[in-house]
């Protein structure tokens, strides 16, 4: 089942590649149609997923290269389920949003589908070697998507993106290999299996160094301040679909990696590093928001808002409480939806006006009321208005981090003020007033296709905002298990209100 989820997009990419080259116009519809297959599979998984079970589900394991202990080892749990769902939802939307790409359409679709396979693979892999392969495989299509279909400075942005990530990957690979070597020393055979590696007995120094190695790779991906500067460039230059997938899913590889690998593999080092991680997270929250306020470019503004929002996810991870973990996991999904939607909207206006500069707009609400309405809705979801999805994640993170790290939580809460400032100020300058520029007066409102793109996202924002239970139920057991793991493997004790006894029935905690 899970193998199929990875293979289907890859096969779909091959199918699109084999389309006759004189029928270029077929590539996008075919790719779009094929991208529904993984959506269906993931949908089936999502509803078949057993709530209240902490371990990995739908696991599949096949030996790949025995001498090194590498296996094709897949599984999904509450932490990765939402991200898989997010990936399969955003891919068709990103494809459907790319009708303006007329140059080398086929390659574009192929790369997007390969990206999907890589992303899903990363989220499902339970073998570190396999994870690394997918983690790296994701880079290539994204590099080309930015580098070929981006705007003016695309090569610079693609390079920067690639080098930053590759830099982090070097540490990641070294650390993974080191883990395998340690396993060989202790048990007489190398292994890359996550579950087996969790039982390694590492000295504190070893685990700290390896924690840092994993941490740097994921921190770049998130990105955590001060490793974030590739992000605004990549977003500004990337085509709409690229931005949507980059912010929506790819950044989550970082936050996912922190939760999945850093905490599981090096719990004591993680506990010791809490002040550093939380500190950087809080700096990211405030810094990203402050810098976003004055950005002259709409896309850059959204990019910096991502830095701020992802800070919340990292903070929730560092909180080491139930609510913090749950908030982080659910915020992963929420941020993907809202920021993806914001990038889509910015893309729509860019296609009409060929500019993203805030000062070039003004009074758009008058000429494009539907667009303005959708933008405002998404902006409020991003600000964290209760009733929409952004709030649930942020609030859980804040509530969850206060018992363990109150000072950081309090500073982070300050970010909610800043979010309102930068988004509403941008809205004010773009949409309100009288449309006095002649280019703006002629703009047409969204067409049916564009509205159709937004509808699923808007519905999900509402549903997750008002009934997050569908996600929370599925994540609870896994986050509790992770917390157990951290608590049992270390001297750390979850503070009194950090542990939520009634999160899920069954599965006793201790």
């Amino acid at each position, binding site marked *: 089942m899970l193998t199929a989820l990875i293979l289907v997009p890859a096969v779909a990419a091959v199918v699109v590649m084999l389309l006759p080259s004189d029928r270029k116009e077929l590539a996008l519809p075919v790719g779009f149609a094929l991208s529904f297959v993984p959506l269906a599979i993931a949908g089936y998984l999502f509803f078949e997923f057993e709530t209240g079970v902490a371990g990995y589900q739908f696991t599949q394991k096949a030996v790949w290269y025995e001498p090194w202990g590498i296996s094709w080892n897949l599984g999904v749990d509450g932490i990765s389920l939402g991200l898989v769902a997010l990936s399969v939802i955003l891919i068709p939307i990103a494809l459907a949003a790319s009708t303006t790409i007329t140059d080398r359409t086929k390659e574009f679709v192929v790369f997007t589908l390969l990206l999907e396979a890589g992303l899903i693979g990363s989220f499902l892999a339970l073998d570190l070697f396999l994870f690394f392969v997918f983690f790296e495989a994701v880079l290539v299509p994204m590099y080309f998507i930015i580098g070929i279909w981006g705007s003016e400075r695309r090569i610079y942005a693609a390079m*920067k993106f690639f*080098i*930053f990530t590759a830099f982090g990957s070097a540490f990641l690979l070294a650390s993974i290999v080191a883990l395998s070597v340690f396993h060989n020393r202790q048990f007489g055979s190398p292994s890359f299996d996550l579950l087996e590696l969790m039982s390694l007995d590492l000295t504190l120094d070893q685990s700290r160094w390896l924690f840092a190695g994993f941490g740097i790779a994921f921190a770049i991906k998130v990105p955590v301040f*001060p490793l*974030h*500067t*590739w992000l605004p460039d990549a977003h500004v230059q990337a085509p709409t679909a690229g931005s949507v997938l980059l912010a929506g899913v790819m950044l989550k590889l970082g936050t996912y990696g922190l939760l999945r690998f850093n905490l599981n593999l090096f719990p004591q080092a993680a506990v010791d590093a809490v002040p550093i991680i939380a500190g950087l997270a809080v700096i990211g929250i405030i*810094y990203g928001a*402050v*810098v976003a*306020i*004055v*950005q002259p470019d709409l896309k850059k503004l959204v990019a910096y808002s991502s830095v701020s929002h992802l800070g919340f996810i990292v903070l929730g991870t560092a909180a080491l409480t*139930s*609510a913090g973990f*749950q908030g982080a996991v659910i915020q992963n999904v929420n941020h993907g939806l809202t920021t993806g939607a914001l990038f889509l909207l910015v893309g729509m206006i860019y296609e009409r006006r060929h500019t993203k500069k805030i000062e070039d707009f003004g*009074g758009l*609400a*008058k000429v494009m009321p539907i667009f303005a309405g959708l933008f405002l809705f998404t902006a*409020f979801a991003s600000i964290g*208005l*209760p*009733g929409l999805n952004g*709030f*649930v994640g942020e*609030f*859980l993170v*804040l*509530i969850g981090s*206060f*018992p363990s790290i*109150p000072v950081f*939580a*309090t500073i982070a*809460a*300050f970010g*909610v*003020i800043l979010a*309102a*400032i930068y988004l*509403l*100020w941008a*809205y*004010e300058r773009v*949409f*309100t*007033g*009288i449309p006095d520029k002649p280019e703006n007066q002629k703009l047409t409102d969204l067409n049916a296709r564009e509205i159709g793109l937004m509808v699923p996202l808007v519905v999900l924002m509402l549903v997750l905002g*008002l*009934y*997050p*239970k569908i996600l*929370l139920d599925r994540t*609870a057991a896994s986050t509790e298990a992770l917390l157990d793991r951290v608590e049992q493997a270390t001297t750390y004790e979850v*503070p*009194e*209100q950090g542990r*939520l006894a*009634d*999160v899920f029935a069954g599965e006793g905690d201790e």
Partner: protein
Amino acid sequence: MTDFVWLVIAFPLAGAVLLHFLGRRLGEPLAGIIGTLAAAAAFVVAFVAALPFIVEEGNHGETVMLWEWMPAIGANLEITWDPLAAVMALIVTGVGSLIHLFSVGYMHGDERFARFFTYLNLFLASMLTLVLGGNFAMVFLGWELVGLCSYLLISFWYTKPSAAAAGKKAFVVNRIGDFGFMVGLMLVFTNFGTLAFDGIFERVPEILDGSTATAIGLLFLVGAAGKSAQIPLYVWLPDAMEGPTPVSALIHAATMVTAGVYLVARSATIFAAGDAGIVVAVVGALTALWAASIAIAQSDIKRVLAYSTVSQLGYMFIAVGLGGYIAGIFHLMTHAFFKALLFLGSGSVIHGMHEEQDMNKMGGLLEKMPVTGVTMGIATLAIAGIPPLAGFWSKDEILGVAFEYGGVGIVLWVIGLVTALITAFYMTRQWFMVFTGEPRWEEGVDPHESPRSMTVPLIVLAVLSVGAGFLNTPFRLTLEHFLEPSFELVKVAHPPEGLGMFALLAAISVGAGIAGAAMAGFVYSRPREIWERFQGGFGGLWEAWQAAYRVDDLYGATIVTPGRKLSERMAFDFDAGGIDGFVNGVGRAVRSAGARTRVLQTGLVRNYGVGFVAGLLAVVIWLVIAGGGV
């Protein structure tokens, strides 16, 4: 029993959804009528659901669970239906319905007529979520949603830059308050492990120590000060007058701005466990006096009312801060009636004067607009505290609570008295400036009385402004008995016992009210030269009041401008120059290192071959020397 109470929220919400998607097709006035009916239906439901509290003594109400939201932190969508919630729901839906009806006439001809009612309905649903919420998260949900509606409605005429800016200002300033509220919630959660009322209020004495309770109280106060426009966060409310006048009446006078008062009353047990209450009262008193003094010199008809609202909210804060929860809620209710009436009346005037808001360009309107004039006159007397109108009873109860508190309470009582005097003054001034004297209308303005749909709500509210006070007089404490079950866990402060004491305090406050009103009447019933001489007598003070003490400029110079500068420095110097400059610097360094070494690559195979062989030889030699023979 009262399971159906969710309908109170559902009706306006359904109205909002319906009008959002079909509003344009329904058109005018059908969209408005549907909106009004949705509000009225909510009122009827609330009334029916409130009946058990009237019939059965000591009925605590119940919690109605709707569905799970964030169960892990005790935050579900659930309704606490108790007397306090019932009173608030009745005020919100009752006044709300009247204002909806008024808006049908007021918004006539607006191209976004239906959209206006969408927002109004959404606001009602949000406000009801706030007052009916059974846990702090749901209160916060409503709290933020009313902020959203306030934003949408203030900037309803978004093509006007000042309206758009005012909406944003309101939301952002509110968010500053929300920051405090949110941190307060975190503290609550950390101590109780839940946000549900059921798990908090009864356990306050066993769990909270005094200082924690004080801290939570102060943080809640920050939130309440934002929403209820208290010092130092009141600056958004005067600007919020950019919205259509019914919005000012509904949101910025009767309902949303009282959310802070409601929050304090709802969390009474927490405030009772610490010392935050007195701070609430002091903030309220200072705000009351401060805002009232500004209101004296305003010439915009709506700004007078805006500052008056800020001032009256200060009164409510005094009450709830000192533990006079019932007095605070009582004043909240009467104020909702007469202030909504004043705002709607001013809307009627503005409507009749072709969007003129400057009182200097009014005058002599009583003949042209008799219903508006008389009803506004009644409201003016009510807010001035003239017996037996509603304002007298509720304001007196607050002053009595302050007096009985003693110590600081006496100071607050004096401040309250001075404020009462000033209030009577500026309200009377307003009425005389608008309705009497020589007409000072601009050319072409032809004032006319508003249509029936607008005057009927005025009349109903006028009746309520007269009669609502009798709900809770020292002789018959109806409201008090009704609300008692909601405040069982705390000691509610009361005015001094005994009729003699009541009469004495009442005489003093009525004296202050009459004095203020008489002074204003004496000056402003006469020609303009007299006013100007009178105003000139205050010298610079008058100008300071007129300019609202330049607080906006102060905030601009100390917070907004430096904040933006800082942001620019961070974004363009530190981020783009510093961090990214470093990154690009590394890139350049690598590149220049490459440029220096590239000359080694000649592209000639022979050269590479030589290097190859040389390397081979070196290895062989090294093996021979170091390896001890191959």
